[in-house]
């Protein structure tokens, strides 16, 4: 099990280890009994008679009631922890999480947006309000022992309070299509000061247009597009700019700034030949600076 990073995780681990031990003991009881009886009562000669025992009420009652008690105990213990998981603290730091086919985007109260990586302060409850743009995803953090499906059409919530600084892996746990296994993200838990400083600054401060484009590519587009000319999900970007592109409806068009810009904001308008219309729209998610950065970045790919 990955090291637990929240108090709740350590409680879940305690319950899990009890369950593990109880399972191990009961399996050993059954398997031990099985092998012992098998060895002891092996058939010695052809017509060896066996005892005629049909049932034993007290024994049968015991091995029904005792498992029942254990199950009820474990159920109640689970209930207590489950209630803590679902009881959202009132004063938590709220982060809006948006799941979209094959990447995660995090938006903070002050409008700061970051994709693929969420930075949060240590020892403070954080509440995620999650929504999905297309299909069901599931925000899963093994280190916090937490998971919550992100259902399109409504909000689902999840809360945790990390107690150690560090970087924790996030998976998508509900099958959501081609790149389901690539839909990963990171949670960086930092000190309060670092967090305030990170929250305030502009992510692209001091970066040139091409570097901004490269940063946007590495967080949003890398899932489906290669920098070579090889196809991944979408077409590769090598010497794309300024060259003829053949579209699905047979016509060809020059890949200039407007073509790239339109493909970002309204991808289904011009679909390249041989590709499914699988690209979601990024309208409203990339601001003007990021789109211009992407265009510059693509220009450099010769």
């Amino acid at each position, binding site marked *: 099990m990955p090291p637990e990073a929240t108090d709740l995780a350590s409680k879940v681990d305690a319950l899990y280890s009890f369950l593990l031990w109880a399972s191990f003991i009961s399996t050993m009881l059954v398997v031990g009994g099985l092998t012992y009886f098998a060895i002891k009562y092996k058939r010695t000669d052809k017509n060896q008679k066996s005892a005629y025992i049909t049932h034993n009420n007290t024994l049968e009652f015991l091995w029904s009631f005792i498992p029942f008690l254990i199950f009820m105990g474990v159920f109640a213990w689970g*209930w*207590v922890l489950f*209630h803590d998981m*679902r*009881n*959202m603290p009132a004063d938590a730091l709220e982060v809006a999480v948006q799941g979209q086919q094959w990447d995660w985007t995090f938006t903070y109260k002050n409008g700061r947006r970051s994709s693929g990586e969420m930075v949060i302060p240590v020892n403070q409850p954080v509440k995620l309000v999650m929504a999905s743009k297309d299909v069901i995803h599931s925000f899963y953090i093994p280190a916090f022992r937490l998971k919550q499906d992100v259902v399109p059409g409504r909000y689902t919530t999840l809360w945790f309070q990390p107690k150690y600084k560090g970087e924790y892996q996030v998976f998508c746990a509900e099958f959501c299509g081609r790149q389901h296994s690539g839909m990963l993200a990171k949670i960086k838990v930092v000190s309060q000061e670092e967090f305030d400083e990170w929250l305030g600054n502009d992510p692209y401060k001091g970066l040139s247009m091409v570097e901004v484009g490269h940063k946007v590519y590495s967080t949003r587009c890398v899932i489906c597009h290669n920098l070579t000319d090889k196809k991944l999900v979408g077409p590769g970007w090598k010497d794309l700019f300024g060259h003829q592109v053949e579209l699905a409806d047979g016509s060809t068009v020059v890949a200039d700034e407007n073509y790239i810009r339109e493909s970002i904001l309204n991808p289904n308008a011009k679909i390249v030949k041989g590709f499914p219309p699988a690209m979601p729209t990024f309208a409203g998610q990339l601001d003007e600076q990021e789109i211009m950065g992407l265009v510059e970045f693509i220009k450099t790919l010769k």
Partner: protein
Amino acid sequence: MSLKSEEHHIIPLKSFIGVFFALLFLTVLTVVAAQFNMGEWNTVVAMLIASIKAFFVLAYFMHLKVDDKVFLVCFLLAVFFLIVMYAFSVVDIYTRVGVSNIL
């Protein structure tokens, strides 16, 4: 050996006619009941009347009254599991938004 010979009880003709008129009356009743706006109660009343009609169709037209009880058990099992499916799904949907504190 003919089926009729053993005590296979056959429902008399006039009870079929009686059930038919009862069903007609109940249909009219349910239509009339729908005119008054009783809010939430409309559905309950409509379902009640429909269930009475269903009882008549089941008991007389489908001979459940005279046949052996296994058929009735079949029908009740089917309806019971439907209610279970409905109950658990509805409990889920109506307790979803606000988390009621159950501890």
